Every structure is written in structure tokens, then in C-alpha cells.
């Protein structure tokens, strides 16, 4: 089925930072796309990697797992990684799973 994407991302780079704005429902159907888009940015250690979650309307273990993988990779390279504008329901899931402790998460 040729699906209309319920998940989209927008990238913006400055000298110091790669900002990726994530929009919509981050579920298993979005996993391959998100991972493919993030992989090259994960490797750019000279820029901070920032994920803007303001327009995320759904997340589950798929997305949380991807964020943790990115975090582990960035951490191993001593490269900065942060999530910003996290909606309250998403923050609740981060807290519930214990991810908050590891992620530099800024609430919306």
C-alpha cells in the first residue's frame, strides 16, 4: 500500500548544529526512514545533533529505541545530542521508561 506519510522530518544545519524537526506519528512504519536520515548526522561529531519533537503526536518503543541508539553512538564519540520541545505526553513515556535520565530533554 503506497502510504501517505504520517511521519515527516525536516533538517536544518548551521555551523554548529544539525537540527532535525520530527513531525507526526513515530511508529514502526517510520523507523527505517528515520534511521536512514539520522545516520549521516550522527556521524557529524563537530555539530551538535538536536531533535525537535514539538510536532510529534505519537511515540512508542520504536522511537525511544532509536533515540537511545543515537544517544549511545553520540556518547561514545563524545558528541552532543539533545531533544528539545518535548510534548508532555511524550515526556511522560520517557520518564516511565527511565530514558529521561540519559537524554538532555527540554520540555515544550
Amino acid at each position, binding site marked *: 500500500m503506497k502510504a501517505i506519510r504520517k511521519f515527516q522530518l525536516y533538517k536544518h544545519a548551521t555551523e554548529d548544529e544539525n537540527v532535525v524537526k520530527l513531525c507526526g506519528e513515530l511508529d514502526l512504519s517510520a523507523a527505517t526512514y528515520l534511521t536512514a536520515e539520522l545516520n549521516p548526522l550522527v556521524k557529524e561529531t563537530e555539530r551538535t545533533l538536536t531533535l525537535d519533537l514539538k510536532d510529534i503526536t505519537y511515540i512508542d*518503543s520504536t522511537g525511544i529505541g532509536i533515540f537511545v541508539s543515537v544517544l549511545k553512538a553520540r556518547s561514545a564519540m563524545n558528541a552532543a545530542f539533545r531533544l528539545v520541545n518535548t510534548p508532555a505526553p511524550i515526556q511522560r513515556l520517557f520518564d516511565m521508561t*527511565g530514558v529521561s535520565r540519559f537524554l538532555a530533554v527540554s520540555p515544550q
Partner: protein
Amino acid sequence: MNPFVCLTIPAQAEYLDIVRLTLYGFATKAGYTFEEIEDMKVAVAEACNNAILHAYGTADSGTIELRLESGEEGMTISVKDHGQSFVFPENAVVPALLEQTEISEVTVGGLGLFLMEALMDDVQVRSYDGSGTEIVLTKRLSRKEEMA
């Protein structure tokens, strides 16, 4: 007879949003709160994730059967596949995330099961030897509302 809805989908991630929409529609009619419905959407998707990822090989030919039922006690969500039985851990899975102090030690295995158990009041996993797995999720109704 309790109100119910049944849905059969291919075991493909593209159908997860339809599952969540069906859950939303049914649970709204049954009188659940916004937050309860948000929790159930994640839980049902996690159950489907397991079937999509583990039940069938690369043949892409498997299906998932869902049954949503709303009764006096609450909502029951059954997610069944007919593929390889997936062995779930016996006890509640506490993900490494909650315990590990170092990010390098963290793994995310079991996060789906953890979320199902955290978001629902009861989770049952039934393995039918070699012919599938059924996950039954229950959410108790906090206030009584009749189905319209």
C-alpha cells in the same frame, strides 16, 4: 453481548495507524478518557509491533487479528498472530534503562513489553506451540459509561 470490534490486518507496519484509529474510535464510544485512550494506543501498537517483527519470516504473508471488546470490567484488546511462537520472558521486564547508570550499558530489549505492562492493567501472553501468539491487554474502566 458486550460491544466489540474485530479487525484483521497484514502483519505490516503500514497498518499500525489504522489499528490506532480503530482503537480510538471504539474506546471513545466506550467512554474512556483521553489519557486512557492514548495509553491503549501505545499498548496495542506495541503488541502489533511484536507480531510484525517476530511472527512471520520474510514471506510477508501473515496476518494479525485484533479484537476489541468493552465490558463491565473494562476494555479487552486481543492481538493474535499465527506465526512462529515468540518466547516472552516470564516476569515483568524492567528495562535496562531504569537500572543502568551508564548509557554504554543500556539496551532497549523488552521495552515494548515493559510499556504494555506499564500502560495497561493486565497483560497476558499466550503461546500456541508453533502456531502463533496471542497478547491480551486489559484496561479497567475507571468510570462507568454506556456504549452509545
